[in-house]
């Protein structure tokens, strides 16, 4: 929220320098709603990193504001409306549960642009949606896991059985199977996005049962620390967690929201903003892998090769793929379409866990 002083100073300077040109107009106000605290070092933290990048790149032409730990539901609508009234030009609502509130407020403020993360409803022309194809990164992780594991079994700490998470587990498994068809994954549902203690306990339980690679779809760095303590390898989540396991982290799926935020705010400034539905992956720079390390060079090369293959158009969900019960899902060469992925509620063949529903 570095607004007033800096913005005033900038306006003054610009005013003198380019007296009377369009440059002297007010900065664009970009506002953000986060579901968690910016100190979670996970989801909301990464969104905030994107905002910091936005401030850095657009400098004084943009003014930002944010509200953190806004509960999904009725409170969200009030928070969004407050932003809309306070002169925000563009509002980013960064959690799935803000979907209906975002659309409701958007209907009342047709001049304000709204951007909703991970949702699918665009009821008004001033609402866009954006998301990232994290499963691309998970496929690469699966490839690495199958190469690195001696026990041939990885532990997967999952949060809630929603399509996003199930999609991730499936992508991980498909990646692993591409290297070793008999690879196993043990899944533990923590039923929380964020509880360092419980996530650490889940990691310990998995390691005690013989897995030698840990991957997680929960937000804290605790599993990484446990893996480091027990001397096995692990994958980070949402941010680069290398500091928590310098000799442990193989790579991490890093959410990069910055480029998108810069692009969209610029579009507002240029007057070229249009409704979009963006689901970006490696190619668009939304999903970035932290450096591949703590692995032999041949694994590193294979990981990079897999990443490049996906970047140039390969979809991890390309048939032949069977469902968990062995019934065919995708035929040879068939590629899963986006709506199917976004509603995914079944496992692929080879996963032992029973999917909660």
């Amino acid at each position, binding site marked *: 929220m570095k607004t007033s002083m800096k913005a005033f100073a900038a306006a003054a300077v610009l005013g003198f320098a380019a007296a009377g040109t369009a440059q002297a107009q007010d900065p664009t106000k970009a506002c953000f709603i986060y579901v968690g*605290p910016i100190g*979670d070092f996970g989801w909301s933290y990464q969104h905030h990193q994107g905002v910091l990048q936005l401030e850095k790149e657009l400098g004084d032409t943009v003014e930002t504001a944010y509200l953190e730990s806004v509960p999904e539901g009725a409170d969200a609508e009030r928070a969004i409306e407050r932003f809309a009234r306070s002169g925000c030009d563009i509002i980013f609502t960064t959690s799935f549960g803000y979907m209906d509130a975002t659309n409701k407020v958007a209907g009342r403020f047709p001049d304000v642009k709204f951007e909703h993360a991970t949702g699918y409803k665009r009821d008004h022309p001033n609402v866009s949606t954006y998301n990232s194809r994290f499963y691309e990164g998970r496929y690469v992780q699966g490839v690495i896991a199958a190469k690195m594991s001696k026990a041939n079994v990885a532990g997967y700490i999952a949060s809630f059985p929603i399509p996003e998470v199930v999609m991730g587990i499936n992508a991980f498994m498909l990646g692993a199977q591409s290297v070793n068809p008999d690879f196993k994954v043990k899944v533990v*549902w*923590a039923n929380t996005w964020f509880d360092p*203690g419980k*996530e650490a306990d*889940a990691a310990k339980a998995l390691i005690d049962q013989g897995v030698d690679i840990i991957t997680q779809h929960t937000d*804290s760095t605790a599993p990484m620390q446990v893996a480091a303590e027990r001397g096995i390898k692990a994958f980070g989540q949402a941010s680069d967690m290398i500091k928590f396991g310098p000799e442990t982290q193989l790579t991490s799926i890093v959410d990069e929201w910055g480029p998108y935020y810069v692009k969209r705010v610029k579009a507002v400034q240029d007057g070229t903003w249009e409704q979009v539905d963006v689901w970006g992956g490696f190619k668009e720079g939304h999903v970035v892998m932290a450096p591949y390390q703590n692995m032999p060079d041949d694994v590193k090369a294979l990981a990079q090769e897999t990443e490049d293959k996906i970047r140039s158009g390969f979809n991890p969900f390309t048939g032949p793929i069977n469902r968990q019960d062995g019934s065919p899902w995708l035929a040879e060469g068939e590629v899963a379409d986006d709506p199917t992925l976004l509603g995914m509620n079944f496992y692929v063949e080879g996963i032992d866990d029973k999917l909660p529903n």
Partner: protein
Amino acid sequence: MLESVLITIATAATPLLIAAMGELVVERSGVLNLGVEGMMIMGAVTGFAVAAMTGSAWLGVFAAILVGAAFALLFGFLALTLVTNQVATGLALTLFGLGLSGMLGESFVGLPGVKLDPIYIPGLSDLPFVGRLLFGQDPLFYVSILLTVGVAYFLFSTRAGLMLRAVGDNHVSAHAQGINVIGIRYLAVLFGGACAGLAGAYLSIVYTPQWVENMTAGRGWIALALVVFASWRPWRIVAGAYLFGGVTIGQLHAQALGVGIPSQLLSALPYLATIVVLVLISRNRRLTMMNTPASLGRAFVPDR
């Protein structure tokens, strides 16, 4: 593997045990402090910050104890001296602690912390099966056991303990006998705060050596429930904390083994177990009444 599982259970139970033991003393003196979660998270952030800045885990632990007690002093001043509503004051303390810790801890997010190493006694710690369990855990685990022994002895075998229970059961009579009700309650509240601070430090220095906002994740509330669960008896708190820890860890293992029970049900198990025991305990109304401090949560103003 069993040994490793038992140690994991001890790690999960210890912070609950420490915080609940402190709150037990507070409630035995007749004060209900719902601010455990707030004092705990302040202990967690302070412990982490001091340990990170000085490089000494022990300094972090002591700082956390002090800050927990300082927070409790704030509660004491409001609830005991100014005689505010204890429930509201405790809740306010929790909200305040959660907010303040987030602000103070902002620059410590994403830094690996200093860990308090497990103790190691040559020979003993290497014994098969029981070595690490009995002689190789983190130092605060042993503190939690000593704390239980100390509290049990203090409450039921010392004169001071008797006075504290008298204050909690009937503050008017205790006052008439010349006991300094407010003074004793202050000491109890400070002790409770120190324990909560220590429990917080356990989370950010031993359990998961890192600081992230809201990392206590409701453990302060579980500690509060454990006190009722234990019907205000110290050793039953140990039983409750380990039962809770055991079920928590057990369900994770059940999942990893691929037991075909829905994970949501397994996750709810620790809470279900707590509720079941609470119901069983409160069936005998007379027994419950006998153990509950009779003046619990009631304000006391001398000579009125």
